[in-house]
């Protein structure tokens, strides 16, 4: 497996105070990574750096062997897709139009969609179970439906990497599972690299195969969820005392905060 992201001494801050401090790591193609940590740890900022949405950092970030800043934004959007926490539209776009926007980086120069774009969008909607929503106004959909439509839009980009910024934070338990089940399939069946920011360590432990824990802008633990989720780490990361248990279905561990 080849290295898809290579970060070396990444330092970044929106103001003079750095949000990310000396981050160095490698992420391999096909990994399913969960970025966990408390509020303000820098998880979302790191994700935005990887998505090419934040510039002006120091240190190096390489994507597929080439410095991220040297990638043309359209070329990058054909390879990396980003799903934010929540999406709100000012104008009444339909779900179908939202998904179609994902085809933009593949439609160089052309103003109108071609039938191949519609095929791609259709497939992305089938995969996320949103085909029936195509003609509905996006803002009228429920939170779970909206996130699946946004995921479909990201998939229409035909990306190698899917970056998720707390995509299920506003969803109920059923829709959280439903969302991550789809993502898990994309990872398993298509080898799509997944990097997901989440507060929910139990959800992360259930789906991800690598957990990177951040605090105050640096990594303090990195490894399989079973190794990262120890009482000592949990105290270091979240300042909580927690008990760690094995899931009855054998899919890793889960935690219960006790104090």
């Amino acid at each position, binding site marked *: 497996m080849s290295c898809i992201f290579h970060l070396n001494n990444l330092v970044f801050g929106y103001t003079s105070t750095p949000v990310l401090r000396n981050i160095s790591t490698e992420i391999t193609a096909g990994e399913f990574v969960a970025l966990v940590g408390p509020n303000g740890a820098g998880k979302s900022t790191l994700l935005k750096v990887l998505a090419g*949405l934040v510039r002006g950092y120091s240190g190096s970030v390489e994507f597929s062997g080439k410095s991220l800043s040297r990638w043309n934004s359209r070329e990058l959007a054909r390879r990396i897709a980003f799903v934010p926490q929540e*999406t709100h539209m000012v104008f009444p776009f339909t779900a179908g139009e939202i998904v179609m926007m994902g085809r*933009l980086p593949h439609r160089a120069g052309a*103003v109108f969609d071609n039938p191949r774009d519609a095929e791609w969008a259709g497939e992305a909607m089938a995969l996320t179970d949103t085909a029936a929503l195509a003609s509905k106004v996006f803002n009228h959909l429920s939170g779970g439906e909206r996130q699946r439509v946004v995921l479909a839009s990201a998939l229409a980009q035909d990306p190698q990497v899917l970056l998720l910024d707390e995509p299920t934070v506003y969803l109920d338990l059923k829709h959280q599972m439903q969302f991550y089940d789809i993502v898990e399939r994309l990872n398993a069946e298509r080898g799509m690299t997944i990097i997901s920011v989440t507060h929910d360590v139990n959800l992360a432990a259930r789906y991800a195969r690598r957990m990177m824990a951040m605090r105050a802008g640096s990594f303090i633990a990195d490894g399989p969820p079973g190794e990262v989720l120890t009482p000592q780490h949990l105290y270091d990361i979240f300042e909580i005392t927690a008990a760690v248990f094995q899931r009855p279905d054998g899919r890793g561990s889960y935690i219960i905060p006790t104090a």
Partner: protein
Amino acid sequence: MVGPCAAFCLLVVLFAPWIGSTGVTWRNVLAGVSPDREIFFVARLPRVLFGALVGGALAMAGVLFQAILRNSLADPFTLGVSAGSSLGAFIAIWLGLEMVIWGIPVVSIAAFIGAFLTIALVFFIARTAGVVPTFTLILAGVTLNFIFFAVMMFIHYAANFSQGYLMTRWTMGALDTADMRTVLGAAPFVIGCLAGLMWIAGQLNPLSAGEEWAASRGVDVRRVKKLSYFIGSILTGAVTAFSGPIGFVGLIVPHTVRLVAGPDHRVLIPASFFIGSAFLVLCDTAARTLFAPTEIPVGVITALLGGPFFIALLKRKRGDLW
């Protein structure tokens, strides 16, 4: 959707010149009989064509500003661009610059510069904040409006009586000064902007959803935004320079078109152009005929229609304004 809009626009433009306080017959017009021929070709046709250009340009400018500011209440009027343009005209009138350069009155050139500088100023105020929140830009527009109006009132006060009349007339907005030269002067700008906007229309869709949303779909946000401001100021400046500030066309038209045709800018932009053209020609026809033989400035009509429309939108948007 664009086809029917274009057909409607064509219909309005073809019929409007026949309507007016003095009756003309098509036999006399085509045979070249005076005064029907002059009334049709010199007085009415250029005015209708110019109205179509101005209406289309203002509607497109509205669509554009709404997309990049992500607020359906943005328009050249609310951003202060029209006021900046008027201030330019006021200064030129005050200084007595009545000359005409290459067929373009200096007052119009001053108005154009005013619009252009205002856009730059709005952009500058927004840029100093680092990121560009929508409310900053709108507030900047409102504040600029206050400042410009204060300066304009001062100039109006300091000016002599006949200059004061010209200024008052300017702020009302009118199309009656247009001749064929005005039409031919403004047309390349407006058509060029329409073409430019169609080129970036596909990228305006994700941009109208959010800058991050657009950037992660490969849109060069900074470039498209700069281009948009440039086109927006040409559109507003080029037409306001000749017509004076005609308000709310950029608000009413895009909003109505969006209700029928949806928010896809590849349809919204050309449809708004045609409906904006038809709308302003109809308003101007009403301005010419309602109190004939007295004419009222078309800006008065669009403001009387647009003001209540704006308030209705505000009321509906209450709660999720920003």
